[in-house]
């Protein structure tokens, strides 16, 4: 009789100890959640700031790129005008003029060569400015990933019954991008240009 009561007493003590341990663990978990609440909420709130910052980068590079494109367009136009004026000069001067003035002839030729080289370089600058389109696609991809993180953090907060705060009413931009857009590897080689031009010449000859 005595043994049984001791055993019951021991069991009750064990259960009591386990319950206390469980209560302590729950208390620790709750403390942990409270500690985590602020950084989770803070991280979630920072995502829109990061996306805004990235969008500003895209807008500013686009503005700068368009200004450069406009300037390059003006340069190519002026270089084209130089070439036209040089042709006009050749036309209006008597045919014997350049024969008798070889130095002037060389100067005019050099001006034409330089104008043509400047135009080619200007086109190369324009080609290179496509970087802005490629990087804006990469930025859009990064923004999309950040928005996914934001949504996951919200899910975590809802799951932990934490205050998610007011919903952001800002309508998100619809994004269409290629996540694999790459500026360095895709650029068409000069050989491809030559091949296309050769094909074009052949087709014209055949017609």
């Amino acid at each position: 009789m005595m043994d049984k009561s001791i055993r019951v007493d021991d069991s009750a003590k064990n259960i009591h100890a386990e319950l206390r341990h469980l209560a302590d663990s729950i208390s620790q978990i709750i403390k942990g959640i409270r500690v985590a609440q602020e950084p989770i909420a803070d991280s979630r709130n920072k995502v829109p700031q990061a996306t805004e910052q990235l969008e500003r980068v895209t807008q500013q590079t686009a503005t700068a790129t368009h200004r450069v494109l406009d300037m390059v367009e003006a340069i190519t136009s002026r270089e084209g005008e130089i070439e036209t004026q040089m042709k006009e000069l050749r036309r209006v001067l008597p045919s014997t003029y350049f024969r008798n003035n070889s130095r002037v002839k060389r100067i005019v030729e050099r001006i034409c060569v330089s104008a043509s080289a400047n135009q080619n370089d200007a086109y190369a600058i324009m080609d290179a400015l496509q970087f802005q389109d490629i990087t804006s696609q990469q930025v859009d991809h990064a923004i999309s990933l950040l928005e996914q993180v934001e949504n996951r953090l919200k899910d975590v907060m809802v799951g932990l019954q934490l205050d998610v705060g007011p919903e952001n009413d800002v309508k998100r931009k619809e994004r269409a991008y290629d996540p694999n857009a790459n500026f360095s590897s895709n650029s068409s080689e000069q050989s491809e240009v030559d091949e296309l031009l050769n094909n074009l010449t052949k087709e014209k000859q055949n017609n």
Partner: protein
Amino acid sequence: MSRRILVVDDSPTLVKFVSYSLKSSGYEVVGACDGMDALEKVSHLESDIDLVVTDLNMPNIDGYELIATLRQNDRFAEVPIIILSSEEGDEDKQKGEKVGATSYLVKPFKSSVLLAEVARLLD
């Protein structure tokens, strides 16, 4: 009379770059910021479009849907369509061909390559 080309891309930089390249070679250009804008613009045009240059990844109506829609219209049944895309995969090229694209150029591209391709398809 100069040939008229429809340029469709959601990147204003690309539309500006392609438009300038084409205009400097004597083509007339109509720009659009996505497939929906392109369809809207061609529906209001009285004269024909001779060639279409389009991106694939665009909001509202993407390049594939735009091409498929244009091909259903008798006015665009035979018009050459060039896809400009940063998607390099064969799958995208085949899908483009299936909906009715004539040619495919990978971004970034040289303007001389685009001009040669336009000339090949129009001349």
